[in-house]
């Protein structure tokens, strides 16, 4: 009975949510739910010219992607791009994806190690749900002229940068601080008691650190603005943000923290009720071509999992990448393992308490 009631409720909610989404399109319209920069205009134009499909892009972030797909039980979009660690838990809880049909994918275009790793991380009940696309890291973006001493996440709490630092109040911050404090949160993923112990320590640290923070940033433009104006001199942020700022102001750049940058891979997944799977596979095979992958890297700023995808990337970006990552830093990247279901609720409570602390 309760299950039925719940379904009715979901249906009612879904009805209203659908109203907000674009109207149902014909089969060869690809409704793409992705991140900003992952589907540049010129790539779409080429794809449409080559295949005859049309592409409708909605940009979003991990949480909103999942929330949107959940509202429609996996409908409304034909292809989505959440990070690889957010696939299995969402699939387990809400069943919003469908498995990838590897026979329709040109696997030779993918860097084999990444393809295998992503397949492993996005497997649920024996089926593979994700293909790797763009990868990158988050770490520190520092104005080296004003905060050269910031080398690690916990350095953001140093008195020398009081009132001039920023980070997001989201899970990467918790993870980064945990590593920086000498713990391994990924190892504790499977043991909720141990993970709670990690969270409690991080909570204490972040609460103590709160007076140092100017504001918790929410969007990429916001943090770039704060860094550019000099109001913030060090922040946790994505590598690309740091490299973009570096182009304007050589003092500002991305720094791979001592404890290790956090590595993420954004994937391709098929929403459970997507209706243009063929167009979706066409898009995947199209954007993984080396020259297209390079175009995406040039706009998004991050490298892709395409074989030879970095060949056509402009030299400045390569130089900035190499400036931030030496071999040791690359080896030290902490790649996000899949987030077990229920972990986010624990992290959420911690984040709420940090937010409310004075």
């Amino acid at each position, binding site marked *: *009975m*309760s*299950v039925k*009631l*719940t379904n*009715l*409720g*979901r*249906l*009612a*909610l879904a*009805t*209203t949510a659908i109203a907000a989404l674009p109207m149902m399109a014909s089969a060869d319209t690809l409704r793409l739910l992705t991140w900003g920069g992952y589907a540049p205009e010129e790539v779409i134009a080429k794809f449409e010219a080559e295949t005859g499909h049309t592409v409708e892009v909605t940009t979003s972030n991990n*949480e*909103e992607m*999942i*929330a949107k797909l*959940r509202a429609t039980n996996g409908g409304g979009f034909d292809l989505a791009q959440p990070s690889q660690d957010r696939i299995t838990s*969402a699939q*387990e*809880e*809400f*069943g919003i994806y469908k498995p990838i049909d590897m026979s329709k994918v040109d696997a030779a275009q993918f860097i084999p190690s990444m393809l295998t790793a992503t397949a492993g991380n996005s497997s649920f009940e024996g089926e593979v749900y994700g293909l790797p696309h763009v990868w990158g890291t988050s770490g520190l973006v520092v104005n080296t002229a004003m905060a050269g001493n910031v080398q690690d996440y916990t350095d953001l709490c140093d008195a020398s940068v009081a*009132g001039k630092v920023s980070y997001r*109040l*989201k899970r990467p911050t918790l993870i980064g601080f945990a590593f920086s404090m000498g713990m391994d949160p990924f190892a504790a993923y499977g043991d909720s008691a141990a993970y709670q112990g990690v969270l409690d320590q991080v909570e204490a640290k972040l609460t103590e650190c*709160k007076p140092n*923070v*100017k*504001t*918790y940033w*929410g969007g990429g433009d916001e943090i770039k603005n704060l860094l550019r*104006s*000099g*109001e913030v001199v060090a922040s946790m942020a994505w590598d690309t943000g740091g490299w973009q700022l570096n182009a304007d102001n050589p003092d500002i750049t991305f720094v791979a923290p001592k404890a290790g940058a956090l590595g993420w891979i954004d994937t391709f997944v098929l929403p459970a009720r997507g209706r243009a799977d063929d167009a979706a596979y066409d898009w995947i095979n199209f954007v993984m071509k080396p020259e297209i992958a390079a175009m995406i890297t040039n706009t998004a700023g991050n490298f892709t999992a395409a074989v030879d995808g970095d060949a056509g990337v402009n030299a400045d970006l390569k130089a900035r990448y190499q400036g931030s990552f030496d071999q040791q830093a690359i080896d030290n990247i902490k790649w996000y393992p899949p987030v077990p*279901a229920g972990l*986010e*609720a624990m992290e*959420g409570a911690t984040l*709420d*308490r940090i*937010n*409310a602390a*004075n």
Partner: protein
Amino acid sequence: MKSDASRLGFYLLFAPILLWLVVLIILPHIGLFIVSISEKVGPRQYETGFGNYAAFFGEPLYWRTFARTAIMSIAATALTLVLGFPIAYYIAKLTRGRTKTTLFLMCMIPFWVSELVRTFGWMILLRETGVFSNALQSLGLVSGPVEMLYNDAAIMVGLVYTSILFMVVPLVTTLDSLDDSLIEAGYDLGGSSTSIMREIVIPHAMPGIVSGCIVVFMLSLGNYLTPILLGGKDSLWFTGMIYTQFITRFNWELGSAFGFLLLGLSSLVVFLGLKLSGQTLSQTMGRS
């Protein structure tokens, strides 16, 4: 025949309202309520119960945020009234014709752009490298940059700014309907400015005051952008908490319960406000 036609006309006119009510208001709320009383026991497994409501009362963080939101909204409403009343009085009683229209229009101009843009406007003014800070420095009043953003006062400024129009409009309407001769009669009978304001103008404007306060309170309570953007790291706001539950925690059940509690809270505050001011909903909403 004629009555049939008029009845058809009635149903045709009534249908959009009914549709609006049912599809966009009643159905989602029923859905929201059903979600709010389902407790998650495991992946894709739910039980009916009031655990989500219990979670709210069990966690001080939640109801403190709730109380903070309500208190700050009430404060914002009071401040908006205090600032809006003189503006409305000036527009309604001390100006005529073209000046009146111009002033009224000037009150509305900021509302032609989106709330986001308006809030960013305040960020440009208040931030450390912003207009006010620079002005104070160049005037030599302060020695270094001043951060005026990311505190409760900034939230208050933003809330008052975003909602003042909704206070001024009903006030101008009711004050406009106040016959000038009533004010003159007050003076003629020996009243002072204060006593006339208290005994004649404010009682007359009461329906406008109450309806303005209801709208402003609701807008402040339900505001999401302003507290988040202007409040920075101290921006706890209940709507933000609902958003977080829905979007980043995937906890629709708790989010729905929060939504219902917010509905209950705002209704309760409005009810108390009406009781305290001795007004009825039909009086205030019917008039403005």
